[in-house]
């Protein structure tokens, strides 16, 4: 079965995010003076074939730990949805 996975990679809390900080400093120039906590990360989408959603999520989780994210400075979340409705 095919599953779409959506991976979000962000800086670990406490790790400096210079891109987020720079954007946060730029927004007030446009009048948005009420914005805080801007964090910039990466979004990765991929399709995997796996027996079920749990297996797909476990495999993508492993990919994140081994390559897609650097656990020293980055956190990640994985969301998996079936690419096609299961057969009735």
């Amino acid at each position: 079965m095919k599953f779409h996975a959506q991976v979000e990679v962000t800086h670990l809390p406490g790790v400096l995010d210079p891109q987020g900080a720079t954007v946060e400093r730029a927004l007030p120039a446009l009048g948005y003076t009420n914005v805080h906590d801007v964090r910039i990360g990466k979004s990765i989408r991929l399709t995997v074939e796996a027996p079920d959603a749990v297996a797909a999520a476990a495999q993508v989780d492993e990919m994140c730990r081994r390559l897609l994210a650097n656990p020293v400075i980055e956190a990640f979340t994985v969301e998996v949805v079936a690419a096609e409705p299961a057969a009735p």
Partner: protein
Amino acid sequence: MSARVGVVVFPGTNCEHDVVRGVEVLGGRADLVWHGDRALDGFDAVVVPGGFAHGDYLRTGAIARFSPVMEAVQRFAAAGGPVVGICNGFQILTEAGLLPGALQKNAGLKFRCETVACRVVTDRSALTRGVSTGTVLDLPINHFEGNYTCDPETLARLRDLDQIVLRYVENPNGSLDDIASVSNEAGNVVGLMPHPERAAEAILGPADGAVLLRALLATAGASARSGDNG
């Protein structure tokens, strides 16, 4: 016999010839090693030079770690051979797990290209053996992602085990604890953001990089004589 240095070349590496030149000017021998090669036989030291290996896609150094040559670098390092990663090479060695921590984007998102003063913190690393602790060297930097970081436990360990090799006198990039260079526990694997090969002879301006490269060649020559590297 002069020490022989293997200089690893990935697609996107761009400082390999500078390293070869720096080594040869100081009396060593250097040969390029393609990233697809699987052996580092006959070398007394390995340098992973700067550039943009594999385009720095995903993260700096993230893809280079999977090149076939990196298994040979891992074996060489595990056998005690001196391995030095310069700039992008430092990033690659952290991604490969050969060095602790990570390099992230410079504080303030500034690309820094200038000569900076660095203080030698230890004389037990492959790159600083025989160099007096406290020596200040003027070294060129040229990077966007040289902001060293690690968790507090790792930083404590780096300090306790004398693994901080160089500190910036004035921090140019936001690096934790002003760190410009760290080593592994044994001291034979070293990563640094400054480019010693760009300051290896007087015609290039400050020649303080020669101090580090000379120390590396001496370390390499010593380990070659004792035959203790893979």
